[in-house]
């Protein structure tokens, strides 16, 4: 049994017990030590794996490395474009599922969420087969940038928009339909009601869904690898290739940048979805 409580201590004050604090620390260490060492060594002067001094040189080299820069700009372009389309498509899907009743609705709702649970490798293979059968894999290779990335963008939209749909759908569940009726009753048209009442209500979920889509797209490796033709290299794929050829602190630097970007995006998404904002 647990130790008797001291005065002023409640049974749920776990955080005050030393062994719990130690456990918390170990869990965090296990989770973040690899990432922390990656970030720390991005500032190391050489690639020996032993700390020899602090420098920003790796960041400068990575920035001036055309291949890395090209891959990163590909990744960002893909992420931005697929985020925009995924957000619109996902919001529309959520609205349809929320508002209308139609045959096989439950089945449809299940299928929409399926890409979230389907193993990425399966989706990657199916997309690769689709693109090669339709001739898109070879067909778009010589198109002008960024249209040569269209396959990857399509693939990313396909696995990102269900996440947006799920987030927006959950938010809409809490919508008071009387708000919509009140708006119409007060003289607003359907369009005005949508823009003035429904969109502001959905906004936190739209932003959260978009940021989710952005981070998912930015660091996706498996599906991208299968759906990218030769020449269209994204950042994760490029890093993978570099790692295979040996350790280079430029990778650490570039990865750190990616971590910061995704971490910031996730943080904003979480903040927007917190209960205090999701209420009403």
């Amino acid at each position, binding site marked *: 049994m647990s130790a008797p409580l001291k005065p002023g201590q409640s049974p749920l004050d776990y955080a005050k017990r030393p062994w719990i604090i130690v456990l918390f620390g170990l869990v965090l260490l296990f989770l973040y030590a690899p990432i922390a060492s990656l970030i720390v060594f991005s500032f190391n002067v050489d690639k020996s794996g032993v700390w020899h001094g602090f420098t920003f040189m790796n960041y400068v080299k990575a920035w001036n490395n055309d291949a890395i820069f090209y891959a990163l700009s590909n990744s960002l372009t893909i992420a931005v474009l697929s985020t925009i389309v995924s957000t619109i498509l996902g919001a529309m899907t959520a609205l349809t599922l929320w508002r209308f009743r139609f045959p096989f609705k439950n089945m449809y709702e299940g299928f929409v969420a399926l890409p979230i649970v389907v193993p990425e490798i399966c989706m990657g293979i199916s997309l690769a087969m689709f693109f090669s059968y339709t001739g898109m894999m070879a067909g778009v290779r010589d198109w002008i940038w960024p249209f040569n990335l269209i396959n990857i963008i399509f693939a990313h939209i396909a696995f990102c928009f269900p996440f947006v749909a799920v987030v927006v759908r959950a938010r809409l569940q809490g919508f008071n339909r009387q708000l919509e009726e009140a708006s119409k009753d007060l003289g607003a048209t359907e369009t005005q009601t949508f823009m003035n009442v429904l969109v*502001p209500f959905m906004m936190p979920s739209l932003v959260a869904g978009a940021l989710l889509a952005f981070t998912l797209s930015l660091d996706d490796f498996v599906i991208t690898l299968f759906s990218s033709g030769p020449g269209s290299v994204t950042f994760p794929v490029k890093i993978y290739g570099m790692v295979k050829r040996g350790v280079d602190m430029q990778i650490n630097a570039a990865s750190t940048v990616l971590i910061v970007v995704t971490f910031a995006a996730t943080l904003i998404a979480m903040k927007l979805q917190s209960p205090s904002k999701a209420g009403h």
Partner: protein
Amino acid sequence: MTEPIVSIRNVSRRYPGGVTAVDNVSIDIAQNEFFALLGPSGCGKTTLLRMISGLDTPTEGQIFIGGQDMALTPPNLRPTNMVFQSYAVFPHMTVRDNVSYGLRVTGVEATETARRTTEALEMVKLGHLADRKPDQMSGGQRQRVALARALVKRPKVLLLDEPLSALDAKLRDDMRLELTRLQETVGITFIIVTHDQDEALSMASRIAVMEKGAVQQIATPAELYEQPRNKFVADFIGKVNLIDVSVLTQKGKMVTCNTKGLGKVDVSTDKACGDKATIAIRPEKLKISTAEPKGPALIKTRATIRDVAYYGDTSHIVADASDGLHLEINVQNNSRTGGAGVERGQKVWVHFNPVDALLLTE
């Protein structure tokens, strides 16, 4: 009645699957009336209100507002505004933006919008909270926002769906007075939906009692209480003793009938009645005495007090007469001592004047 502002003609609302929410309802509501739709939950009163606002559509019948058929007019173009049961105050807008919303979306000019918004906020005494968000306000304040938001549009008819049901008892009493005051100041027709008979009786100038989608009676509060048309209305409005009788003879207005517990009694009625009827008598119109009451026309019976409930100003007494007849009697506690003056198990006389009784044939 002069030209009614709202005229509901043979309106029905049927849902697929055979549910009839509103069944052939016809009501005329006059300019400046405070009209109440009263009934138990599920009686179709809210559906009727929503059809007046245009948020629901009748399957049969017509609704006229200001003499115009509203069949093809969507809710945003109708001269009605609604105060919703949940208030439906826009959570992402300030109080001022909520109130001005109806003017902004219909393109009312900015200075005019500002002036009318301020006016409406003053009217519901919310001027000092104009910049608050709804989640920083109490239920009563949010309701005032909903009221101001509807009134600022200067509708011909204001529709209120159970406006007081979410407020606590004290606030409800204040709001009741406030609504009556507002209705007199703005001179707009109010139609209120409620399941609370006290609310309807105290506020409305006329009441339509509904049950199972149909209107049972349309009358003033006093008429409803003293002249209910049928057993449902008598029972729903206030408390009543309903005594089943079998009619023996009817000579003009005088009906002689046989009842369990009261024996042979004579009551008057305007209507022709069949074999069966019901005598309705309000508890406060029954009297209790320990000695046998004297009076030629009094209807009286021996009874045993079963229960006495003390309510301060009144006591509610249940007495058993013969033949399984239970009578509810309300007694005013007119003196500080003695209360109702009777106690459980006591044998008493219960009597009433036949003119206070009503013979119901439906």
